[in-house]
């Protein structure tokens, strides 16, 4: 694991009107690791992701990419850096096939300015094969014919196709069955194996314990703890999420109580 985080957030503050949603949040992802971002509803997970995505402006704090400070003012800035966010509601077009979806908005063109279907199909197939995706019968299947897990796979593969370096996954397994969850989780693991920085936002502690290298727990807009998955138990993570502290890990008792 490299010593420089691929993406680092320092002291992020964000308020909506009088309500402060994020209190000087620090957050790091290293290339080749899966960082889980956990927290109860309203802890600030989505707000943090939207700050990284450039959808919300931050009040203060800085974002470092590859160790260098960057400004993200909009989704395009994030995309230009190589940060891809796979949203819960997927953003695939049901009426288009897998190749068409993966290249949507970034189609390859022939010298005659027409769509280069051959090149796109080859790249799509190569990317899916590179992720060891075996569940899709044909890359020319229409998305409406795919299962939830297959759709999630396509959405994640789309992020990989464009050589992104950080992928943020918002609840990728929330709507999936057991077998499909396993498929998606192993895909998440392979993203990290391939050198990407992966942020997994999840409510499902089983998923988190299974796939994450480290866990950042948010409690009422503050980072309660950033711990290695190996150093912590399932029950302790739940305690971090619900109370902000567990044993000697987490916010100081006074601080946790005050936040609540």
């Amino acid at each position: 694991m490299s010593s420089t985080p691929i993406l680092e957030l320092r002291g992020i503050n964000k308020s909506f009107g009088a309500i402060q949603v994020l209190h000087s949040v620090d957050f790091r992802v290293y290339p080749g690791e899966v960082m889980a971002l956990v927290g109860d509803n309203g802890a600030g997970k989505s707000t943090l992701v939207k700050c990284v995505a450039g959808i919300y402006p931050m009040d203060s704090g800085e974002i470092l990419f590859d160790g260098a400070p960057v400004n993200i003012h909009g989704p395009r800035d994030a995309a230009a850096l190589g940060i891809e966010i796979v949203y819960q509601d997927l953003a695939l077009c049901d009426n288009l096939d897998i190749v068409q979806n993966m290249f949507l908005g970034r189609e390859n063109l022939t010298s005659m300015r027409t769509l280069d279907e051959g090149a796109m199909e080859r790249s799509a197939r190569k990317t899916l094969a590179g992720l060891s995706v075996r569940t899709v019968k044909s890359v020319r299947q229409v998305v409406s014919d795919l299962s939830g897990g297959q759709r999630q796979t396509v959405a994640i593969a789309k992020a990989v196709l464009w050589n992104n370096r950080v992928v943020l996954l918002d609840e990728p397994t929330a709507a999936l069955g057991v077998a499909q969850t396993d498929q998606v989780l192993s895909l998440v693991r392979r993203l990290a194996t391939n050198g990407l920085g992966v942020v997994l936002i999840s409510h499902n502690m089983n998923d988190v314990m299974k796939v994450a290298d480290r866990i950042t727990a948010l409690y009422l807009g503050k980072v309660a703890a950033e711990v290695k998955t190996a150093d912590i138990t399932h029950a302790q993570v739940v305690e971090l999420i619900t109370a902000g502290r567990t044993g000697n890990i987490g916010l100081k008792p006074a601080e946790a109580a005050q936040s609540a």
Partner: protein
Amino acid sequence: MTEPTQTPPPPILANTAAAEAPTEAAFSVDAGATNLKDSVLAYVTRIRSGEVGALPAVAGLVVLLVVFSTTTKIFLTRGNLANLPTQAAPTILIGMGLVFVLLLGEIDLSAGTAAGLASAGMAIAVNFHGNIETQLKGGMFGAYIVVMVLALAVAARERLWPGVIAILFGGVVLVTHIGSNQVVAMLLAVTTGTAIGILTGFLRARVGIPSFVVTLALFLAWQGVLIQFLGAGNSFPTREFKTINALENTNISPVLSWVVLIVFVGGYGAFTLYTSIRRRAQQLSAAPVSIVIGRFAILALLGAFSVFFLNKNRNPNKGHVIRGLPWVVLLILVVLVAMTLLLSKTTFGRHLYAAGGNAEAARRAGIDVPRMRIAAFGISSSLAAIGGVVLASKQGGVPADAGGGNTLLFAVGAAVVGGTSLFGGRGRVRDAVLGGLVITIIPNGLQLHPNVGASYQYVITGGFLLVAAAVDALSRTRKPT
């Protein structure tokens, strides 16, 4: 109209260990050509899941042909069958335009009256030697210019350059007198359609009025403007203007008819066969050659039969000989091929389908969805205006109700019967051709039954439309979500 695109960097994963093993095995089904059996099975699966495509329209055509040819003597005569394409042409052309707005899940109720209004521009231009301002009194000419300028501004703001060029041309025709030329006058009609469509699209996409309301308002308004253009109770003849009149009333010579057939059907066959063989060679998913040849053979057979049939004299009376392919068939073929290529081979077409399938996904992919809407309305009204020109040619002039009445509803019906979804995201330009023929054959055949009243035309046409819409709706609900 295409977006700037970048070539994707080679996927970083391709050179890692994970990529080695399963590259070919994972997609054995579609790597290389699929065989005939797989294709047939896939087609059956598609039909069962509700993706019926052109099947209902083709089935409807066959049923209607069989019913009318067995129950009447006249239906199968040359004179009657040759009427079908010319009767269907305005509906087909307006319907082809509507496919573009239907693909986005929108509707354009004003396409019919806009077509009528656009053709009035043409009729005035040729009847007044290009001096359009002499006929348009009481500020109407000024209003015409203002509409064109506004549309030009919108088109430029949205970077719709083909639209800008078209509207600029129309503006030049308006202020100069070159509209005395019939071809130029027809182009004035088309560009007027472009301007109307772009303004309609702007009201829908940027102002945010639902398309049903925008186009309902314009449907009413254009009827009034048309009456103002013509003067109360007036109508402008086009019969004596040879080029305009030729569209619906003259035919291509028999030899040229064969040439048209060979160019279009042969071109289709060569292109699809070449694509299939090349894709197979490149290990890409490809339709089996047998199916490609089969499709081509059916088309060639139908085409050859039609041309052979139409090349015989169909004038029942002695006198001059009527034979050959009607000119309007060539016009429809050209528009069909051009629009099909636009939808299937360009980023514009791809983005239109994406915006119709999931506007939010399209937006996140960086597609300017409102701009796509404006472009779709622009194309729709431009094609509708071509339909208006053809309608004028058929009627021999532009009356005060040109494009009114059921014109629009039949065109929407044509697209839907042909298989275009009202919910957006699914449809092809050819749907309007197939559906337009169905919609036209019904009244054509029924009028040959003296004991079946005209009232049945509407009921039966309505029934067909209901069935088509039901198939469309059911195919959506059957899909897994």
